[in-house]
């Protein structure tokens, strides 16, 4: 009975148990034994050819990888170390300065005193019922002086 090629291959590749392999070897014909020998020769020939080819091309992966790893790397500077007391002092100074600056800006940019304010009436003479000096406050709380006198058109004026 002829042995199938797949069984012959399994025998060659040692994929059969020892009992199966022994039993199969007993069944091999001369032709099949020649096939098995040919497979062995072919295996050896391929193995030798691959080794010879590999030996002629020395593979140096590290040198290539090293060349790529050798790209200029950035030097990370060492983080400055500031003493805690100095750091707190700096922060406190910054906050106080910012608050002082804000207060100063509020002072400088406050609504300017109305130029209409601060009028001093030194003399006042009128003809008629009288006069009143009033302070007119604007919406910013600044005062403008208003001199009001009662004008009666029918009066007979006399020179002051």
């Amino acid at each position: 009975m002829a042995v199938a090629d797949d069984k012959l291959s399994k025998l060659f590749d040692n994929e059969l148990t020892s009992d199966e392999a022994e039993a199969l070897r007993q069944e091999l014909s001369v032709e099949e034994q020649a096939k098995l020998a040919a497979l062995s020769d072919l295996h050896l020939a391929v193995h030798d050819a691959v080794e010879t080819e590999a030996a002629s091309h020395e593979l140096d992966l590290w040198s290539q990888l090293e060349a790529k790893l050798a790209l200029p790397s950035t030097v990370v500077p060492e983080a400055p170390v500031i003493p805690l007391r100095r750091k707190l002092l700096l922060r406190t100074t910054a906050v106080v300065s910012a608050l002082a600056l804000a207060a100063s800006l509020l002072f400088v940019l406050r609504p300017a005193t109305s130029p209409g304010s601060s009028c001093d009436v030194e003399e006042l003479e009128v003809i008629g019922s009288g006069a009143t000096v009033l302070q007119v406050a604007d919406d910013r709380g600044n005062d403008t002086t208003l001199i009001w006198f009662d004008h009666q058109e029918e009066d007979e004026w006399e020179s002051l």
Partner: protein
Amino acid sequence: MGKSVTGRGISGAAVAGLLGFWLGVPQLALAQTDPPKAAQVESQASGSAACSVRVIHATAGGSRFDAGLEPLRPQLTRPPLSSWTSFALLQQHELSIPSATPQQFALPGEHVGVLSYEGPTEASGKKRLRLRLEIKDGAAKLLSTKFVINDSGTMLQAGLKHDKGLLVLGITCRIVS
């Protein structure tokens, strides 16, 4: 156009104020108040003043408010002038008043105004002007007043009746030289 009676600005004084704030000097608060007259430093009467006299007709009817009166809106819309609802700018006289040389300006109703510059004065570093205002009806002086205002300051005068309304004078002056 006259100078605005209100405004914001950063001046040299403001810079000094900033410095003063940093130094914690309280003089700034003092500078905001009027000193006694005796403390005012008088200067020689010289130079000239530039004055803008707005002649305003205030009436109770309508709601007119001329654009030229915007600088005076804070004052005109407050009591007692807020009793009038319409404000028309009848005339605006721009006067250059040399010291001791009174300048006249026309007023409605054949009245005449006379404004005199009696010289600069100074109080706590603040420049001021001494002025005299007269309102005449022919030879008669209806009003005569002498007053001191801050440089670029404004003074209001009211009382003359005109065309079912009231005449208001807004006088804004600054020192020229």
